[in-house]
């Protein structure tokens, strides 16, 4: 009954409507430059990495765990990819499986320490992330490594479909997989139970430890995919740059939880949230606003969206 109510539908698609409104405002102000296919191709193609990091975050978040190491996993794998390609000379086909394995291994480390030593994931992943950053700085000698094989760039930003760089479609394909896994598989349900209450999950027969470990591994692999794409986007690897993606990714994950499936971290909500934020930033740049306005938009949009969402759900609770 509730799912059919207009209020609920409004809540589900509220952010999408705001996104459309933001597009409409920028389109009215700069119809000739903002409302062009090339601009939307740029919006969609430039932030695939952020979408994937956000998607990676929502898996452990659904299970009630934080993965603060995901940005450093990205940076480490990005550097590993660049070094193996530019310095060792391995072909990209050989590097990708190595990089994905490295991401999975980081997930195993995070999961093992969290589960076996019963330490909060926030602390474990913070420590593992900082440790990874140290390794990244050591193996790169704190330098940006360029000279990555051109094939990788071709398969990330140069090849296009409908004018949009192919990395966008990778992000959408991953969102599709995660959406299906969370909504229609036993693992997805177990993940949700684990997140809502570990004891309850355990009593209903869910192997909570195994589920949480799988979530950490999935998050590590997503971080690794983002790392490979990051190197493919910039054609190089910087030992610090991935770090700054962590907060925008968390912002998008929490913003995404206010729409499509309100109250739950969900794949399509995350995608909408990232592109809503990116559209805002792009529009402000096209209008020539200074970069501090970007921060005002980012922070303001997040707080406002969560406030509105709380208001709507709070009102609902009062009417029950």
């Amino acid at each position, binding site marked *: 009954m509730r799912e059919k109510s207009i209020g609920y539908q409004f809540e589900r698609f509220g952010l999408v409507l705001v996104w459309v409104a933001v597009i409409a405002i920028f389109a009215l102000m700069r119809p000739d430059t903002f409302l062009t296919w090339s601009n939307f191709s*740029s919006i969609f193609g*430039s932030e695939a990495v952020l979408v994937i990091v956000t998607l990676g975050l929502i898996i452990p978040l659904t299970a009630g765990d934080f993965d603060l190491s995901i940005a450093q996993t990205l940076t480490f794998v990005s550097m590993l990819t660049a070094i193996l390609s530019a310095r060792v000379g391995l072909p990209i086909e050989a590097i990708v499986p190595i990089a994905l394995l490295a991401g999975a291994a980081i997930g195993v480390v995070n999961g093992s320490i969290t589960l076996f030593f019963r330490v909060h994931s926030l602390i474990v992943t913070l420590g593992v992330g900082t440790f990874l950053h140290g390794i990244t700085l050591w193996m790169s000698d704190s330098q940006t490594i360029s000279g990555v094989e051109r094939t990788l760039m071709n398969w990330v930003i140069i090849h296009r479909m409908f004018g949009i760089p192919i990395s966008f479609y990778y992000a959408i394909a991953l969102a599709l997989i995660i959406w299906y896994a969370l909504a229609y598989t036993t693992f997805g349900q177990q993940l949700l139970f684990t997140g809502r209450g570990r004891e309850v999950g355990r009593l209903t027969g869910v192997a909570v430890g195994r589920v949480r470990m799988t979530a950490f591994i999935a998050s590590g692999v997503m971080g690794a995919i983002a790392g490979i794409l990051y190197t493919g*986007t910039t*054609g*190089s690897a*910087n030992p610090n*740059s991935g770090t700054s993606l962590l907060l*925008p990714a968390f912002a998008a994950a929490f913003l995404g939880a206010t729409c499509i499936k309100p109250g739950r971290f969900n794949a399509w909500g995350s995608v909408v949230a990232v592109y809503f934020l990116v559209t805002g930033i792009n529009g402000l*740049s096209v209008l020539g606003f200074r970069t501090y306005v970007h921060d005002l938009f980012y922070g303001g949009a997040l707080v406002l969206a969560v406030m509105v969402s709380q208001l709507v759900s709070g009102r609902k609770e009062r009417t029950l």
Partner: protein
Amino acid sequence: MKKNIELLGVASLFVLAAVLPSAAQEGLEQARQNIETYSGIPEFTAPGEPFDAKACMAGKKIFTIPASSSIPFVKTISEHKGELAAELGFEHMEWENQGNPTQWIQGIEHATNNGFDLVSLLAGADPRFFEPQVAQAQAAGVKVVTSHLTGLEQEPPAGVDAATAIDYRKAGELMADWTIAQTEGKTNALVLVSNEALSTDSIVSGLTEAFETRCPDCEYEIVNVPITDWATRIQPTVAGALQANADLNYVIPIYDSMSSFVTPAIAIAGRGESVKVATFNGTPFVLDLIRAGDVEMDIGENLDWIAHAMLDAEMRLLCDLEPIRDSKVPLRIFSAANIEEVGNPADAALGYGDAYVEGFRKLWMVSE
């Protein structure tokens, strides 16, 4: 009378029409000449008179606080200074740090408490963050200098004893000159800066002056992106500018490490053929990007040359010689035409010749 005024008006128009293109042409020629001058291997220019470095530095101690030991550019200069000090027979210590101002403060206090004669704040350790500690060190008889922090026209910041400067203004001029020469006076550029760095003012003043004097018709927009936001803000800023300005033909990130976030934005917009990148610093990975065709030009400095020049200025101060403001560290323009000279992968010390090695040793009177 009226007829005379009309005639005068027409004559003025003719004169203007004749003068304006020649002024523009003159500016273009000047820009081309500057580019040519700075594209060759630089010559050594002595920053001051010769002095007996070994004799006057005997028993003296220099303490270097680099901006961050994890930045290879700064770390390399600091290490080379240590090697030169060993060659000249006096003590030099580098304060290892990760770029945190509290670590710089610990460093300056360590130097004050351990009998060092001079503290060198190297390439970004900004004394404006710890002015009281600078004053305390000076009160204890320690000389405090900034090295490779300010431009030639900038005064020593925060009351330090001397500031050995780099010609950042010239670097700014050369970036503008390059685009003027390449576009034949039709530059339409996005200039990316980071205002919190002390050198930015100097670079930007050189760049704007070059545009104003040599190419008044050139268009450029300056956008500030704080250093901590490079990874997240540069790409959307460039993407937005490319979208808003169809005539854009240059992006000028004034520090070349910004380039890795500029080039993807240009590639995603599919404007690689029409929008070029001109930048400054000579960081090896950006020199490699010139070889790959993603960056068109980078202005570089030789790190070993900087180490020689900074130590030279610091020794002069301790030997009671005239302080050196202009380090005479030269700049060189790298582009596809001379990129092979820097090695593959690029090496920060290659491509500048070695005239300075002998030059400084003669100045210090240690030459065989």
